């Protein structure tokens, strides 16, 4: 009788142990599967593909924390604007590896261009459903007007007019946002069509300047930059950039080397090689002008202006930015 009782207890213990081990395995396995799923490389694409050829400008900036200059700048921004350590941690978790975007000049309202912002966040995009959870938090929820689906993409629509974005969608490893819902939808439609950087005038500049951490490409083929400059010149009665008519596209590349140094390059690409001297003259004037403006903030700029085929290259190296960052 006594032996039976011991046997019974033993078998119960065995059952409990096995049950525990089974549940523990399932739990650990589940966690492992979840994290494997979470960090499994996501199918992704080049962000330039969804910046439409209708854009007037393209901007891109790497946010690589291994880069000394970027890290310094982001730390400064964090110190200035993020006071709560939890917020700082969340931001660092969701920090995109690159931010890029396209700008469409709005002729009806030149001060309010339409734009698309693309944040590369890779596998962390799988946590995007957390946005829906966060929307129950009053601080976030008050901005979100609703959720919808467009062309298979889930859209989050922001209601407040004061927010810089009207809506966003997740496209593979990217968050795509815009200040104009129609533009956002058009961008989602355009995923496989002609992009801004594929245009012949831009393509060369894009490949030549892609080594820079931050890049801006401006297409002046329809003369929108020319119109702005002419308007400002007339307003101020000053001839700043008389050769702008000859400029087809502009590229600006910048590397923040460290807290004190910035290297960069500007390329002015012309329709005709014959205009290069005229454009070079303007570029040299800008170089001299900015050198003098920055000198006021104790920043020294060393630069060189050269002509290569249809392009005027302005290469510069700046020292003494640390004080300027502080002021900014």
């Amino acid at each position, binding site marked *: 009788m006594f032996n039976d009782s011991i046997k019974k207890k033993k078998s119960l213990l065995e059952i409990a142990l096995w049950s525990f081990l089974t549940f523990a395995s399932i739990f650990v396995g589940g966690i492992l599967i979840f994290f494997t799923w979470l960090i499994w490389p996501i199918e992704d694409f080049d962000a330039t593909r969804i910046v439409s050829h209708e854009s007037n400008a393209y901007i891109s900036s790497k946010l690589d924390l291994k880069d000394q200059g970027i890290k310094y700048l982001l730390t400064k921004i964090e110190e200035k604007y993020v006071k709560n350590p939890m917020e700082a941690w969340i931001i660092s978790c969701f920090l995109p590896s690159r931010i890029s975007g396209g700008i469409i000049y709005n002729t009806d309202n030149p001060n309010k261009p339409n734009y698309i912002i693309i944040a590369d966040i890779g596998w962390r995009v799988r946590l995007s459903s957390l946005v829906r959870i966060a929307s129950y938090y009053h601080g976030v929820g008050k901005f979100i007007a609703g959720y919808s689906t467009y062309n298979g993409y889930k859209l989050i629509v922001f209601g407040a007019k004061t927010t810089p974005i009207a809506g966003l969608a997740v496209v593979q490893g990217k968050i795509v946002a815009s200040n104009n819902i129609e533009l956002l939808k058009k961008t989602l439609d355009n995923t496989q069509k002609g992009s801004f950087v594929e245009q012949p005038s831009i393509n060369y500049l894009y490949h030549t300047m892609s080594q820079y951490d931050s890049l801006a490409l401006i297409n002046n083929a329809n003369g929108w930059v020319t119109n702005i400059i002419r308007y400002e010149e007339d307003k101020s009665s000053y001839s700043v950039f008389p050769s702008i008519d000859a400029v087809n596209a502009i590229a600006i590349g910048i590397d923040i080397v460290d807290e004190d140094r910035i290297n960069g390059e500007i390329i002015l690409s012309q329709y005709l090689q014959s205009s290069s001297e005229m454009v070079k003259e303007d570029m040299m004037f800008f170089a*001299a002008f900015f050198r003098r403006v920055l000198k006021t903030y104790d920043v020294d700029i060393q630069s060189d202006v050269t002509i290569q085929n249809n392009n005027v290259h302005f290469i510069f190296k700046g020292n003494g930015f640390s004080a300027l960052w502080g002021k900014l």
Partner: protein
Amino acid sequence: MPYGANYKRQESLMKKVTEQCFLITAAVITLFITPSLARGEEESLLHRDTLVAFHIINSPKDPGVSWLLTNWLSQIKASKKFLPEQKHAFSDLFKIMPKDIEGGIINKDILVIIAPVPSNSNTLKDALFKIIKKIKPLEKFNYKEYKGYYRADETKLRLSGFAVSENYVILTSNSGYIKQTVDILKGKKQRLSDDSRYEEIMALLPSKSDITLFANNKDRGFSKVLKEWEKQWKMTVFLSAPYLDSMGLSFDVIDGDKIKGVFIFKCLQKEKIPDVLDDAKFLGEVFRRKFAKEKIKYTSNVTLKNDFVFLDLEASGLKPLWVKLFNQ
């Protein structure tokens, strides 16, 4: 998208710098028209420590200066900034304007103007009294044979007091400095013309000119004054200012339409001459771009002669620009 803000900033800075240059020139031309000390042949009335000295020759036979004065006066009469009695005072003052007017900036803050007293000294005193007076009553000034008035609310570089003797009229932004000026005039010691820098630059400037300006960079005096102005302009116009020994400027207003001028820069160190050349070229370019937009014909040339850097410039078609400046 940096185009808007940066471009506007660049335009407005350019505008500020060029307009300041023109305003100084215009003010210098118009404010001072009296008897004197033809440049290079007589001694200066200013103290040796003057950082920036100017000299204006108001010859009634000179069609350029006469045209400018007539137009300036008509703009004053049309202006709402002045009271009717002040407008009358300006009218009276312009009629008896001395042939030679000398002035300068001392210790960064003090502006002084000295001119021989015209035959009708009572008209001069009355006119100056009305022009200087604002709301509060003027304080009396009496020192040696000089008598005059000054405003208690003095601000730096703004004329706020005057004193008249049988020989000279002194206007200054600092009532305390009137006494010092009187002593300098009486003592004939420590004059600016005793400074070898002044002699050297003045000897190089053309003998026939309506306005001359001398900037003394002894102990970096001029570059310190310039730095103050540059802070307001938010631009370092002369990168090479700390390496300058002295600077001269001469303008000949040929008629209402045409002006001819020369800047002369003397460098402290030979190895810094390329920097001074660069500054001179930039200055020429700043003018060229302003004039290009105003449809003014302009030519300039930078040369190096015996370690002195010369910027020669000539402009015609200036009438509309003068009118615009007087209207400000």
